[in-house]
């Protein structure tokens, strides 16, 4: 049994300007000890998926489908039951560590909080344990400071410590390297990988950066406009993209010459009919604008494209 399985997960936000279909029919699964990367342009719904798994979406979101974690559907749990899973079984690392910490509490108090609320141990021993972890990360003394006194990179490490302090089985990292300067990127990734391996967790790694995905993930899911368009082993997918969007995404990376994908990102309120990528696709056929291609499974690779049927 997989650790996590999403079955036709759809998320719709109701906003004053209409219904935003931020995720449509997303299906994927994650095994124990596996790392799955989710990549795609900004606004394609990566964070929405992450937050939907943890049920962190705001009230204007309506979610359908199911999120099966170790046999139970998280979407059916009560808020109390869900709270027991968050932070303990499933943890998340956000992309903006400085804003993710509460500005008026000390780092140490915030890192030890999961211990306090999930294990019910004394405040004193929780702080002790958190202090030990900070030391191991080379952040001695930083625990007594406030988030605004730390650099972005230090806050990032502190947040990774905080999210992994209870050795969760599933770690979600939502663009953990965004906003860090180049030297820090590898250090942060290294830290996440080591945390993953130490606690034997599975990892969902959301990123813009295909290199990051390539170096750190077993499998990859490529998202476009709320849909998964291609999924498979990372080397396979990035080495030999089957979907025109994956190909275009690869070509837009800086080391590949930085060629931007032609056309505009589509509206999520009224996405294009048929294949959502067809207005920007170089291989467009007649059927593409009429009918939505299914996610076609063939030997460990799924592709949503009429060319691959």
């Amino acid at each position: 049994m997989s650790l996590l399985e999403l079955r036709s997960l759809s998320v719709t936000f109701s906003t004053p300007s209409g219904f935003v279909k931020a995720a449509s029919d997303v299906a994927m699964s994650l095994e124990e000890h596996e790392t799955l990367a989710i990549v795609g342009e900004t606004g394609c719904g990566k964070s929405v998926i992450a937050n939907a798994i943890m049920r962190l979406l705001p009230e204007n979101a309506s979610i359908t489908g199911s999120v099966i974690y170790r046999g139970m559907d998280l979407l059916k749990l009560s808020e109390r039951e869900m709270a027991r899973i968050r932070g303990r079984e499933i943890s998340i690392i956000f992309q903006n560590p400085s804003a993710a910490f509460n500005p008026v509490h000390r780092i140490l108090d915030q890192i030890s909080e999961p211990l306090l609320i999930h294990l019910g141990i004394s405040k004193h021993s929780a702080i002790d344990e958190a202090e030990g972890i900070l030391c191991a990360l080379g952040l001695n003394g930083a625990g007594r400071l406030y988030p605004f006194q730390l650099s972005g990179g230090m806050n990032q490490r502190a947040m990774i410590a905080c999210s992994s302090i209870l050795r969760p089985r599933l770690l979600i990292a939502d663009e953990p390297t965004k906003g860090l300067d180049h030297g820090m990127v590898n250090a942060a990734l290294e830290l996440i990988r080591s945390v993953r391996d130490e606690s034997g967790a599975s990892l969902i790694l959301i990123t813009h950066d295909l290199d990051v995905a390539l170096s750190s993930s077993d499998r990859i899911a490529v998202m476009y406009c709320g849909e998964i368009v291609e999924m498979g082993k990372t080397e396979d997918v990035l080495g030999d993209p089957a979907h025109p969007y994956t190909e275009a995404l690869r070509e837009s990376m800086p080391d590949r010459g930085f060629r931007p994908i032609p056309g505009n990102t589509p509206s999520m309120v009224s996405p294009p009919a048929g294949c959502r990528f067809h207005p920007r696709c170089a291989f467009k056929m007649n059927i593409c604008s009429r009918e939505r291609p299914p996610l076609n499974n063939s030997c460990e690779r799924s592709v949503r494209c009429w060319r691959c049927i």
Partner: protein
Amino acid sequence: MNLARYVISLFVILSLNFAIPRAMPGDTMTNLLGEDVILDDTLVQEIRREMGLDLPLREQYLMYWKDIMHLNLGYSYHFHSPVLPLVLERMKWTLLISAPPLIVGAVLGTLLGALAGWRESMRSRLQTLIFLIIYSTPPYFLALMSLYIFGFQLGWVPMKGFYTTGSAGNIIHHIILPVVLMSLFSASRNYMIMRGSVIQERQMLYVLYARAKGLYDSQILFRHVFRNAALPIITLVALDFGFIFSGALFIEMVFSMRGMGNLIYSALLYRDYPVLQGSFLVITLMVITANVVADVIYGILDPRVRGR
């Protein structure tokens, strides 16, 4: 930096107090003594000289400051008393009905406001409507209505005054209705501010992260959101202090209590300008003090300010 701000404010307000009677239409001496004074001409000349009104403005200004330094706020011919002791004596009573409500109102208003801003429910909407109505009603009208109902119709509370016999129980019986009204009035203002502040605060990422750590609703509100949301309102509440205090003045008038409110009311009736100005000065001083206190509290609660 902030200290300079308060000192400058104080200086400007005291100078304003000097300028007002001299800038207003009418005879400066009348403006300084009040219209309740009838003097014959020779006496007028004498007093005019004594008050230095024939000196150049610059010297009058220096004299004014000397008086302020000696805590001399002038003399009320109507009340036959120096202004400062008169004001302070009345202030005691006004503080009796406004200080407890300030605290009750702050606690009640921020708590209920935080809950209402955090989660919208049928109950919180009703609550907001009630506080909104209190917020929108002039305090004296609220006082009139409740005095009519609880004093006039039901006879539960006395119609006027601070006391008849002077025992503690008697005083409490007299002030209970004004105190409740003031508490509601002050709570309604804190409620609206806190509710808005929490609504804004709950969009923050740290709230989402707290939820992701496994805290549930009430824990997030009270461990994380409350303090952040309360920070801006500390300053706002201090600035609102003058307004709430003014509410107390009006409520006193309705209940015919011999506090500051009634002092101002009679001073107005007899155009007793020294008392009016003295009252204004003392109230302003209290507001400035409230702001200083708020600054200190803010500094304690917000590490970002403390760090500097």
